[in-house]
């Protein structure tokens, strides 16, 4: 695995094969550069995720959630998580970019935000958690999609 922003599809394919052969529901494979987790999902067969390691020392994230999670390109997400302006997910759950379906999103790229402003909502077990801006600034990048599962420590947006 290199730091090129490409997914090692051969490795993912090997792990998926292994998953089928062993009957396991989830396999995680990690090198110093990348972590690949292959897990069975129920929507479209298998949920395949390739995500870089989040914060060193962060609490281990539980198994991936059922909502299909689009895999960010490893290098991009890795860079984003290390970005000094990255706002990361405080918990595992489902992310919403608006207070309710159809409402205007909390933030858009290019928007100015003030400290404490709500950026996203994350739901788990019917508990709703506002993710607030740790500082004021401009939202330069939104990294997480609406209505998708997020892991602990996953970068959600960048404020500069």
């Amino acid at each position, binding site marked *: 695995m290199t730091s090129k922003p490409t997914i090692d599809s051969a490795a993912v394919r090997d792990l998926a094969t292994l998953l089928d052969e062993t009957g396991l*529901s989830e396999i995680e494979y990690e090198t110093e550069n990348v972590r690949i987790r292959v897990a069975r999902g129920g929507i479209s067969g298998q949920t395949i995720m390739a995500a870089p390691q989040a914060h060193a020392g962060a*609490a281990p994230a*539980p198994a991936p959630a*059922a909502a299909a999670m689009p895999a960010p390109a490893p290098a991009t997400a890795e860079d984003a998580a290390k970005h000094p302006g990255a706002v990361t997910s405080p918990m*595992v759950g489902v992310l*919403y970019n608006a*207070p309710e379906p159809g409402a205007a999103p909390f933030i858009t790229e290019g928007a100015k935000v003030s400290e404490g402003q709500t950026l996203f909502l994350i739901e788990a*077990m019917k*508990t709703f958690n506002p993710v607030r801006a740790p500082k004021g600034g401009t939202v330069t990048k939104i990294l997480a999609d609406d209505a998708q599962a997020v892991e602990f420590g996953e970068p959600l947006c960048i404020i500069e």
Partner: protein
Amino acid sequence: MSNVTLPPGWRLVALDAIDSTNAELRRLSEAGGGGSPSVAGLEGLTVTAATQTAGRGRRGRAWASPRGNLSASILVEVGGARGSAGELSFVAGVALHEALTALAPGYDFRLKWPNDLLLRGRKLAGMLLETVFPAGAPAGQGAVIVGTGVNLAAVPDLEPLYPVTALAAHGATVTPGALLTVYAETFAAWLSRWRSEGFSPVRAAWLQAAHGVGGPVTARLADGNEISGTFEALDEAGALILRTPDGGTCRVLAGDVFFGSGGGTPGGGA
């Protein structure tokens, strides 16, 4: 609301009408006791209203609160651990189940994942939990607002997603004040147990009172996808483990859950 007794240290703010008891409790807690951005010391702060003018459910859905039903929001301190805040959904659900069973013995109340309360398959109560981590509050200071609505007297005319009912329709009379007194007591007891023993006893009690474990279930996820299969288990964090017909499993953290083969009537009337 009259004749309410709360556990030691809890405080009651009883209102006649408010937009939403959760919203009012959030305003009170974010204002802090003395204007400081802190929720410390606010555990047990409880807001009730005889009626809510803008009661809410999941994802902005309206929740009707006619007079005679219970609308109550209780603040619980959770320190800095947001991840465990979801466990409170089950602590509250188990406590409400115990309280209603004590006040209306002989009725088979069941919990629907994660914490709606059903009577004969119809929704009798709903909850909405929201975390409060005030900006500028010291690290490790956070709270959860546990909002509970129980249809004691009247069947709300606003709940398009699931069939609803009220306790009075089944011949039992319980006042909001009587329920709040017992619910606050069972909630305080389960909170204490959760803090000293962890999620395990809460999970066990929830499973005892749960509806549909082992049976057919459909989960409608936030992105609109629906998964159908068997409600296989409640995992260690409270997620619903759904086994799909192809033998795989899904871990559901959030969504609308429907029981019965064919998934009940998802979308029906919604």
